[in-house]
């Protein structure tokens, strides 16, 4: 068996079989992480560079941990404090790093398509750790893994993505993935934050009423309001957003069933999600982070084994 791709640029390029292989390999790595020694020698002598042109806590630490658990050698690069600040281009930076013999590149960049651009120009395997407002494939994979872990499967499950759909790469990757794996997807939020033709374009349901969306779903994946990507006023205030679209305990208590609450982090407490919901037992936010390491180990392992 083999993945159909050499890079992980987005969920869009993966086949359902690729996704199944990644998720089942992640299950085995989750087992590894519960052993006495949580490390395997699979990627010994593989050099990985983590190129982070954009801030990140979870993703960067998660990738770093996954790489270390696989015994890979790693270099961390953050844009601030590097020559990128002096005006070196992305391709030049990467080519310079590659001339030091690097096998894989984990890239986060604020420009959508940056990893696709690199994949065309360099021989190393590229893993997209989030590119602008395009995709964040490993987040979608770990979300799917967490849903599968909690509910047994993805097929036929109803998942609603709530909030800032327009600026969210997590949303786009999740929609692609869940559609491919046979889940039903809905997006919910204020009309200003939901792209106009998303329903027709991506085959998802659109709902502007949060209560109705929550009543419909099995799982609610609450997305962060990305103020740093908004250059115009799309809602009047954070407080108003919270009143209309914040997931609160009161709303959840009013439902007939207990739904699963997810959030890709970082959380804006009291904006898209209230503290008592984020910390409740319905929420699997911290399990998502835990699963992230196993899923990233699976991706790195599977791509390191794919010859060019």
């Amino acid at each position, binding site marked *: *068996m*083999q*993945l159909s791709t050499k890079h992980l640029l987005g969920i869009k390029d993966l086949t359902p079989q690729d996704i199944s*292989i990644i998720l*089942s*390999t992640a299950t*085995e790595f989750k*087992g*590894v992480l519960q*052993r*006495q*020694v949580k*490390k*395997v*020698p*699979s990627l010994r002598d*593989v050099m990985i560079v983590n190129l982070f042109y954009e801030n990140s806590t979870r993703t960067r630490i998660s990738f770093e941990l996954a790489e270390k658990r696989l015994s890979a050698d790693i270099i961390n690069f953050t844009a601030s404090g590097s020559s990128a600040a002096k005006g070196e281009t992305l391709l030049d930076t990467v080519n310079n790093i590659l001339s030091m013999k690097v096998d894989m590149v984990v890239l986060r960049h604020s420009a959508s398509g940056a990893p696709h651009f690199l994949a065309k120009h360099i021989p190393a395997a590229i893993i997209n750790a989030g590119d602008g407002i395009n995709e964040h494939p490993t987040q979608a994979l770990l979300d799917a893994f967490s849903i599968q872990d909690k509910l047994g499967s993805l097929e036929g499950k109803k998942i609603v993505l709530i909030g800032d759909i327009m600026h969210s790469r997590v949303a786009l990757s999740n929609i692609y993935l869940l559609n491919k794996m046979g889940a039903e997807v809905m997006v919910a939020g204020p009309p200003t934050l939901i792209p106009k033709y998303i329903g027709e374009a991506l085959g998802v349901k659109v709902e502007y009423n949060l209560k109705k969306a929550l009543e419909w779903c099995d799982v609610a994946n609450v997305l962060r309001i990305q103020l740093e990507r908004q250059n115009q006023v799309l809602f009047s205030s954070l407080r108003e957003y919270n009143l209309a679209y914040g997931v609160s305990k009161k709303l959840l208590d009013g439902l007939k069933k207990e739904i699963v609450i997810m959030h890709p982090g970082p959380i804006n407490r009291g904006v898209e999600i209230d503290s008592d919901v984020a910390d409740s037992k319905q929420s699997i936010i911290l399990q998502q982070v835990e699963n992230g390491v196993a899923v990233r180990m699976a991706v790195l*392992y*599977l791509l*390191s*084994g*794919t*010859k060019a």
Partner: protein
Amino acid sequence: MKIILDKQQLHLTISRLAHQLLENHLNLNEVVFIGLQPRGVKVSNLLVENIRSLYPAEKVQYGILDITFYRDDIRDELHVASKTDVPFSIEGKTVILIDDVLYTGRTIRAALDALQDFGRPNKVELCVLVDRRFNRELPIQPDYCGKAIDTVTSQKVKVEWEREEVVLY
């Protein structure tokens, strides 16, 4: 194609191996059995079933181990992992590794590496159904062997579980 062990011989051999294991380990409290994924597990299932019929069954500790992540050829070919289930500590125990065919010895090397990550066993022993004794690439020998055969590298030895036979191709 040549049949090395037919159905009757296969079951007799496994039953003999079970008796040999018990002969050497009268007290199974300090012994754990570990079958190697994917192909060794069928042998180890039968073997452990046999041992459990000869010894208080609940005292026989049995796990399965997948060595995919420890292979030395993972960059040549992509291997998809199978399940690992070792629900007990191997610290200070005698571990009996069970596989179907011992060939180059590389799987066993990887298994020894993998075992270390579960603790430090007192002793590790190797039990195989078939030993292709002249094809070793590493200094590894079995402690218990169902049948030793002489083969060349171009040949293939396979346990056909539908027919319950060991076949040389």
